[in-house]
């Protein structure tokens, strides 16, 4: 789907009247998943890549790490996004690594030594 096409979809969605949401179950299991989704779609809209390019990476990722279930789908999604942005030199490895470390440090500083265990912290997830 090209950026323009996605824009078309979104315009159409906004224009449709408020039909009841009877099927409106949540499809993201954590807020970061919808962010990752939004980033990938937005970049396509901005013309950074064609949707097919992202999708073929995603298919490869999923095929390479055949998940037991759908639990890790957005992990594959995120990995594909990273890969594509590095390939296209939108970001560099150094920039990414630095930014991750920076965010990690911020959380460490804020939370002290509270988190020995991995967990989703809802307060930081929006």
């Amino acid at each position, binding site marked *: 789907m090209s950026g323009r096409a996605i824009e078309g979809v979104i315009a159409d969605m906004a224009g449709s009247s408020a039909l009841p949401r009877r099927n409106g179950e949540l499809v993201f299991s954590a807020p970061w998943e919808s962010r990752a989704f939004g*980033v990938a779609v937005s970049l396509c809209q901005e013309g950074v890549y064609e949707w097919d390019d992202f999708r073929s990476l995603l298919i490869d990722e999923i095929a390479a790490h055949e998940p037991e279930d759908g639990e890790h789908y957005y992990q594959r999604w995120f990995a594909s996004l990273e890969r594509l942005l590095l390939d296209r030199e939108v970001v560099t490895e150094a920039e990414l690594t630095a930014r991750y470390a920076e965010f990690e440090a911020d959380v460490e500083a804020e939370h002290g030594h509270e988190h020995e265990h991995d967990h989703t912290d809802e307060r930081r997830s929006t």
Partner: protein
Amino acid sequence: MSEVEHVQPGHLLSEREATLRTRALESLLLEKGVLADGAVDAVAGIYENDVGPLIGARVIAHAWVDPAFKARLLADGGRAVKELGITGIEGDHLVVLENTRDVHNVVVCTLCSCYPWALLGLPPRWYKSYAYRSRVVIEPRTVLRELGLDVPESVEIRVWDSSSDMRYMVLPERPARTEALGEAELAELVTREAMIGIATVST
């Protein structure tokens, strides 16, 4: 935790790491001006809350009330939905499969989770599950029964495997005694599950 690795093949991030990295990547892209401020909010919000399967439901209801449109829809799905002003059907290869008294269609993507987003919103979680992707092809009747749909033995089940260039949507049977309903009311009856083929439409 100070060592930050990324793009490790097959490496699973914890939920916490995934949350951090998504935010970090987003901030970097914003800073570089690659992402516009608010763009992600707009996209995530729309797909999360507003799309749902309603666009697809509109198409189905229209096909039920307009036989000529239905014929065009079955002949060339991508072109027919454009008549309704619906854009963004990836690759234009949308195949609409009609359920009848004799044939029940069900859609899967065994490779990953190809899905006609523009029509059906985001896929339900089970659609992406390995269990569904692998088993529905082998034993569709059993899987459908487990999902709450009993397809009589007399009805043939056809399983359609989506790919990156071929998307499928099921045209469910119109429920009986709905002659009095208008198109908008009919659209409200159509569920995402029915358009994937794991449910029928009832009133």
